[in-house]
């Protein structure tokens, strides 16, 4: 009898190892992720997920559409255009770093093989500034949101299309780290990102409808009424972490960059519609 149990235990162990070895690919993750929401909200058109909670909240949507008639982020776009056009002290402009023009949001984030890291748009903007002897911008609040608003606006209609290159295992690792971050519980309140935006997406938390994770990255930077201004994706990440009473990570640090890589990949196929307006 004891031997039977031992054998069973061994088989169970072997199966367990087998499962770990067959981790899902990003492609499989993407399909499972998007299918989950299709099943949960069968009446929502795929592109409408780019509108966050308003895809599933008719009353909130009406309010939001009224706000969009006079978009609160408009002055930030204008200020961003001024920044884009204004020459640096050395006479060069952002165009010298980004010859394809301001409509480049759809290229980010991407895996930078040379640097061995996820490259984001805010990071690329600051590298441009520093390469031209200018002071880098802060990553959460302030003028970075102007230039990001302008770039996002010019990039509207592009499609989210994050690539996890197969020729560099470090890219897959960055993706996996971002995925792990998303599903890991943290903070005194012990929530993962997924607790609210996958497991309980569409449910009501006090008076707020929890928005689906699918589409979360399409509309940044975002004007939040709560902030009274436009803020970056990483500002939102750190706010979420603080809400669950966890210590926020550094904006544009490796943790949030990898999280952005994973989360944006999960929205592959959705239109870019930033800057957005949210409560």
């Amino acid at each position, binding site marked *: 009898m004891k031997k039977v149990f031992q054998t069973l235990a061994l088989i169970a162990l072997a199966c367990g190892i087998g499962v770990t070895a067959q981790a899902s690919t990003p492609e499989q993750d993407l399909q499972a992720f998007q299918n989950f929401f299709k099943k949960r909200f069968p009446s929502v058109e795929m592109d409408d997920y780019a509108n966050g909670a308003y895809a599933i909240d008719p009353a909130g949507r009406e309010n939001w559409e009224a706000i969009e008639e006079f978009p609160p982020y408009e002055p930030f776009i204008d200020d961003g255009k001024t920044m884009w056009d204004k020459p640096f002290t050395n006479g060069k402009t952002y165009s010298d770093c980004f010859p394809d023009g301001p409509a480049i949001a759809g290229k980010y984030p991407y895996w930078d093989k040379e640097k061995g890291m996820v490259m984001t748009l805010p990071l690329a903007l600051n590298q441009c500034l520093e390469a031209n002897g200018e002071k880098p911008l802060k990553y959460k609040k302030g003028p970075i949101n102007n230039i990001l608003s302008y770039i996002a606006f010019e990039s509207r209609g592009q499609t989210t299309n994050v690539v996890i290159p197969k020729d560099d295992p470090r890219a897959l690792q960055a993706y996996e780290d971002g995925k792990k971050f998303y599903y890991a519980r943290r903070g*005194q309140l012990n929530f993962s990102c997924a607790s609210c935006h996958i*497991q309980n997406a569409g*449910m*009501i938390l*006090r*008076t707020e409808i929890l928005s689906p994770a699918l589409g979360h990255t399409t509309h940044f930077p975002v004007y939040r009424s709560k902030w009274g201004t436009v803020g970056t994706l990483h500002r939102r990440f750190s706010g979420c972490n603080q809400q669950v009473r966890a210590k926020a990570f550094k904006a544009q640090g490796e943790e949030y960059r990898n999280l952005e890589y994973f989360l944006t990949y999960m929205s592959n196929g959705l239109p870019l519609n930033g800057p957005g307006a949210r409560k």
Partner: protein
Amino acid sequence: MIGNPKKLIGMVGAITVLAGQFIISPMASAAEGTSATEKGKALAFDRMKGNCLACHNIPGGAAPGNIAPALIAMQTRFPNKADLRRQIWDATIKNPESAMPPFGKHGALSEDEIDAVVEFIWTL
């Protein structure tokens, strides 16, 4: 071994509550009218404390969430008060998938505060 300290905490808690009822409530009802139940209600409704309404519908509470079951018929659902306390202390013991914050395990509420919340929830 793991179960014992919890039982002990539960017993200590129960004793505290019992003692609290004898000591605090007669005084309170005479003075400010705060019994353990009322203290528990205040903690349960406080956004920075229990904030139970964020997820649970509770009779007498405004703007509840709908993530978790309504808090009704609690004595039918938890005939044993210690089980209710354990659920609030750490809901993931019973259900690892539960999104409910482990109020005791993570110290979001003190042991005394949990006792008071249990007293309140037990009346629902």
